[in-house]
């Protein structure tokens, strides 16, 4: 069976669009798949057409350029927006991408391609603290998405807290859109950026640019501070802000009245799909995981490429550069004549080094664990309090997976996307450490399908209706690895 396309790209953010366009311009048959109704990903999230925004670029740097890329892409590739990928499979020379189309009357749709580029982006990384599940507490990304996509300002009196440079555009955007931003509380040192030699150029100016914008709206930017508790009876009414020591232990606290808290501690790359395929992962020094790629953005799995946040959190500009590199590599690997582009490669390397340095400048420090109380929910979905996580550890759990098995933390709707990082840390490790341990010790930890870190092991990346799943029953199951004889049947002792 010939695959439908030369290349399937998952993700319509800066990385995916650049990759798809580059490959299409090189003459490949390309399909781009994204869950959202409009291209853009997180950074270039745009208001719905119903807003008839005359100046959508007010909320983004570089939107015009991205919009042009989308227009160029439209005639050259198939663009499937509103398609959620729930699983990817690889069989010999082709990949099968299984999607659900539509945001409610879902229809299954399957796409096959010779090559796959995964550019699925990231999501916010929250840390638990007492009250973090109160309505009115959301992630910075959520505040940003509401503003950019729906022109809804998350609140009236807003506190922004967490760590990392992303807090700055969020606060600036909210302030510009009319919210009273009471403060940006950066748990890391405020001077973290400037200390690193890499950060003396480029982005620092941008940080200062935000500095000026924040100053214009009289938004204070404080280092070594964090929201350690959120209060309210059914909804947020105020927060406790603490001064922190180096390790993020609170040293003094005060309360601030607010109706909204946007709080997040960096990003987590969405690795479900690469882990399904068995792509090798790399642990950053600060404990995060990303897909390992070579200079052409090839993963360890033949025919599978990755770009953007999938290869490490690094922002929209790096994402675009990586997308272009990936598109070129795919084209070259499929026999198109693509001359090397050393300038682009060097640019990518520089930006990636900068991103790594940024990650190192904003690490999560261990003191946050002290913010939690016994009854603080660590897992929001299954409502698992800290005490239950501790009990699981006492019972013999040693990592995120075994804590999950004994406490249900991470077993609910979000499948550990929100609590996974915290649970790994509470178990005394890090997602990276769990990755090294492999999937629960079952047959070693080397990279192969399903053997990745338990915390990212989600064979079903998006909920799928059983009725739709049943529709795949007629397909013949793939044969096992060679040399495994068919088995004699036996009554199912547990079904």
């Amino acid at each position, binding site marked *: 069976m010939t695959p439908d396309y030369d290349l399937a790209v998952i993700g319509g953010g800066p990385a995916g669009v650049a990759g798809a366009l580059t490959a299409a311009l090189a003459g490949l048959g390309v399909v781009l798949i994204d869950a959202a109704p409009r291209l853009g990903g997180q950074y270039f999230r745009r208001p719905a057409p119903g807003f008839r925004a005359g100046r959508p670029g007010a909320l983004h740097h570089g939107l015009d350029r991205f919009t042009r890329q989308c227009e160029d892409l439209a005639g050259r590739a198939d663009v499937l927006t509103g398609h959620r990928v729930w*699983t990817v*499979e690889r069989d010999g020379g082709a990949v099968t991408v299984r999607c659900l189309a539509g945001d409610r009357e879902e229809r299954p749709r399957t796409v096959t391609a010779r090559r796959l580029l995964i550019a699925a982006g990231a999501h916010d990384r929250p840390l638990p603290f007492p009250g973090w599940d109160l309505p009115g507490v959301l992630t910075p990304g959520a505040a940003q998405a509401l503003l950019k996509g729906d022109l809804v300002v998350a609140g009236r009196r807003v506190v922004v807290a967490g760590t990392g440079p992303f807090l700055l555009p969020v606060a600036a955007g909210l302030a510009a859109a009319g919210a009273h931003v009471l403060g940006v509380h950066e748990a890391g040192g405020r001077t973290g950026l400037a200390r690193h030699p890499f950060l003396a150029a480029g982005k620092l100016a941008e940080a200062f640019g935000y500095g000026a914008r924040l100053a214009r709206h009289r938004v204070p930017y404080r280092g070594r501070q964090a929201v350690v508790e959120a209060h309210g009876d059914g909804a947020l009414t105020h927060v406790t802000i603490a001064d922190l020591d180096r390790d993020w232990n609170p040293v003094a606290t005060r309360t601030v009245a607010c109706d909204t808290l946007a709080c997040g501690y960096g990003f987590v790359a969405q690795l479900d799909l690469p882990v*399904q395929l068995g792509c090798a992962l790399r642990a950053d020094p600060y404990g995060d995981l990303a897909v390992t790629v070579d200079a052409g953005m090839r993963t360890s799995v033949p025919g599978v490429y990755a770009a953007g946040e999938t290869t490490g959190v690094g922002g929209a500009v790096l994402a675009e550069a990586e997308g272009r590199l990936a598109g070129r590599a795919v084209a070259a690997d499929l026999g198109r004549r693509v001359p090397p582009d050393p300038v682009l490669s060097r640019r990518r390397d520089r930006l990636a080094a900068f991103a790594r340095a940024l990650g190192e400048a904003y690490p999560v420090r261990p003191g946050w664990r002290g913010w939690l109380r016994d009854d603080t929910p660590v*897992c929001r979905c*299954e*409502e*698992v309090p800290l005490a*239950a996580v501790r*009990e699981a550890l006492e*019972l*013999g*759990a040693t*990592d995120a*997976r*075994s804590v999950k*098995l*004994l*406490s*249900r*933390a991470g*077993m609910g*709707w979000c499948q550990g996307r929100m609590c996974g990082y915290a649970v790994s840390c509470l178990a005394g490790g890090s997602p990276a450490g769990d990755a090294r*341990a492999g999937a*629960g*010790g*079952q*047959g070693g930890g080397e990279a192969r*399908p*399903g*053997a990745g870190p338990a915390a990212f*092991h989600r*064979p*079903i990346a998006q*909920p*799928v*209706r*059983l*009725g739709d*799943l*049943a*529709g*795949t*029953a*007629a*397909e*013949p*199951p*793939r044969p*096992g*690895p060679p040399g*495994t004889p*068919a*088995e*004699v*049947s036996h*009554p*199912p*002792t*547990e*079904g």
Partner: protein
Amino acid sequence: MPDIVVVGAGIIGAACAHYAARAGLDVAVVDRGPVAGGTTGAGEGNVLVSDKEPGPELDLALLSNRLWRELAASPDGDGGRDGTGAAGGSGGGTGPEGGGGFEFEEKGGLVVAENARVLRELTAFADLAGKHGVEHVAVTADGLRDYEPHLAADLAGGVFYPQDAQVQPMLAAARLLRRGAERFGGGAPALRTGVTVTGFLRDGDRVTGVRTDRGDILAGAVVNAAGTWGGELAALAGARVPILPRRGFVLVTEPLDRPLVRHKVYTAAYVTAVASDSAGLETSAVVEGTPAGTVLIGASRERTGFDRTLSVPVLGRLAAQAVALFPALAERRAIRAYCGFRPYCPDHLPVIGEDPRAPGLYHACGHEGAGIGLAPATGHLIAQLLTGHRPDLDLTPFRPDRFEEGLP
């Protein structure tokens, strides 16, 4: 020096340690991973008597069923004290305090027949099992809905098995270990996670302990409860115990607001296929609700080595079977799937007993798809052997050297 070292902190190792500690032995348990990190953490918690033909496995299952009830009822519960804790906010089963701290639920199993012929065979099967102590109630086609209101309409009838029950296997393993330590042992069983057994200590033929990556542990006897890896472990002692992986996938739905499935429900189709040699993949979905509101649909069986790659058609078949039983499930979503590797022997019976080729080494592994159900009986019997008592059941069918050539 402990009296015994148990290798493996899965449900079988936990049960062996628990009963040995109860019998007054000092027990150490080692596992290269966490507690319940092997197949015990990758399966389901059905404790079934409904699916077994009369024979040694059914005898084991019936003994085990009784012991599970005892364990769940036992008032020593460190589970009772804080069952809400580790069971999570939404756990609980028969109430958060109940279920022995491991969500034991006496929910019963409903086996349904799709047509009159299958119903006849099912009824005959149940009557025969009844003669060996399996309680059962015949259910008419109309009666099915009293048990399961959402069941498909076109079924011919079924049999209800009140003894079928359910546990949360990971909690059960952890709690059994803990209880053995707190209540019965003299400071044991001591659980050591992250310790890999790499060989055996010998005195002549006799096994006198284990060699691990964290040093040697001398002991009076060693129990091989290494599950799917039990064959590899036995090989370190020079004994051949053929245990192979048999892969199974389980599908988990979103948590439902109202229970859709009350019992364990599955079709009788397999009864007719018992003797057939169907090749390759086999699915026969057991559908059941959990205290957390999810519906579990499991499990497939395939021999594909240790390959964890998701197989969409396999999940598709499980889903199709579940939807055929409960049409309302078609609109509900699967949010998770996982797979595990059942430890299986060519004759589909577990290996329980001392190895004559390596005296001092006791095997308790190879329970295939029924290790959760069979764990307490296995632990109890091993403890009887270790303390020189006559085991309650004849262990001949389970003896470790039965695969040697030339033996009957």
